[in-house]
């Protein structure tokens, strides 16, 4: 059983799912420039991680393919989310919806982080120094994503929770 390959596959799926969620949140939060643009930046970052994981998987006899995305459907969904967000952007509930979106991203990013921890331990156990270096660097980037989500949650919480409607 190719357990390392399995782990890489799960990590790859987790990064791709996180990228999709960042883009969905960017669409829903289109009226909030402080959330919208960083989510797009981090979605790109997850795509880059996924590419590097596919390259690692090659070395461990695991075949991982790029996620299939219908660009037309994805673009249409984005446009609808974007427009809805602009219309609802300053609705009284929009702060609570933002917190919910950020919390979901936080949980998904932490899940990605757990996979990086495991892969780092594996790299040390099998004495693959270059894998270990790469995993360390990419894990640090995921931790920075969690740090941004924490910053944004702290930023948004008082306005959303401690003010009167």
């Amino acid at each position, binding site marked *: 059983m190719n357990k390392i390959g399995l782990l890489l596959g799960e990590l790859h799926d987790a990064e791709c799912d996180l990228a999709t969620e960042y883009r969905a949140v960017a669409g829903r939060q289109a009226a909030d*420039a*402080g959330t919208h*643009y*960083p989510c*797009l*930046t*981090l979605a790109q970052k997850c795509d880059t991680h996924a590419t590097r994981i596919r390259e690692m998987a090659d070395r461990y006899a695991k075949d991982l393919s790029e996620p299939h995305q219908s660009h037309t459907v994805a673009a249409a969904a984005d446009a609808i989310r974007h427009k809805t967000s602009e219309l609802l952007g300053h609705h009284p509930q929009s702060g609570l919806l933002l917190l919910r979106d950020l919390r979901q991203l936080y949980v998904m990013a932490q899940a990605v982080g757990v996979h990086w921890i495991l892969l780092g331990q594996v790299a040390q156990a099998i004495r693959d120094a270059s894998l270990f270096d790469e995993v360390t660097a990419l894990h640090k980037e995921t931790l*920075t*994503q969690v*740090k*941004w989500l*924490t*910053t944004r949650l702290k930023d948004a919480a008082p306005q959303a929770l401690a003010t009167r409607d």
Partner: protein
Amino acid sequence: MSSCRPPCGARRPAATPTPTGPCTFRTRPSTRPARPAPTSTSSSTTPAAWTCATAAAFPCCPGHPEQAWTAFTALTRGRVCDQSALTYHKLRNSQGIQWPCTEQAPQGTERLYTDHTFPTRPETCTDYGHDLATGAQNEADEYRAHDPDGRAILKAASYLPPHEETDADHPLQLTTGRKVYHWHTRTKTSRAPELEAAAPDVWVELHPGDAADYGIAEGDLVLVTSRQGTTVEAPAVLTGTRPGVVFLPFHYGYFDQAVPERHTRAANELTRTEWDPVSKQPIYKVTAVRVDKLTDARIARTGRR
């Protein structure tokens, strides 16, 4: 209220001057609306009334602005920006004082960090730093774990492409910025006749190669349009140095226009709402635009075909 002359010799704002002398850039047909007439002087803006308005803004410091200044500088005592010894008397009798200005450095401080010690120790620093790409804030405990011990911190950032890319519909990249003649929105510099005469209205700088591609000659009136749906009308000046890039000075709003609803020269209105995640500075340099010729230079200048 007692009548009192402001001690710092401040004057009430000058009236708007009428433009005099030849204009360097005559951009519009002669049917352009005339500038508003200068406001007449009135007794409602005497020095006494101005000073009392300032006193109202600082209820804890009744009297005049010097007391507000003293209260402010006392707050800076012991801080990195210490100006506690910086008095009106020193300001009036010098060419300028560099802070910190304290009891230990009563004439100010010319150079900082001459002992190579920076205020970065965890007990002294005012911030723990950020990730430059997202603005993620560093936490106190991780900062303490990597205590810089008074050293300066240099940060590097990888290149990130702009969030707005050019395409076939908006093939040029707009950057807005400043010119030497004006400051911000010209509320002061437009009142200086020499500056106003030197640069009274907006223009757009294009690379000569791009201008040739679009059939635009020097002085032609062009329309610059962005994805925001806003537009700027400006004459073309073919001094751009970078192909694919277009420059607009952002100084020209509409506070001084006879028809203020007509927003045809506010360059920053072409840009999106986006800001640098750490400094929160708006992104003014990478908007995708299209440029279309409106009229020939000769017609733009004279209003006659």
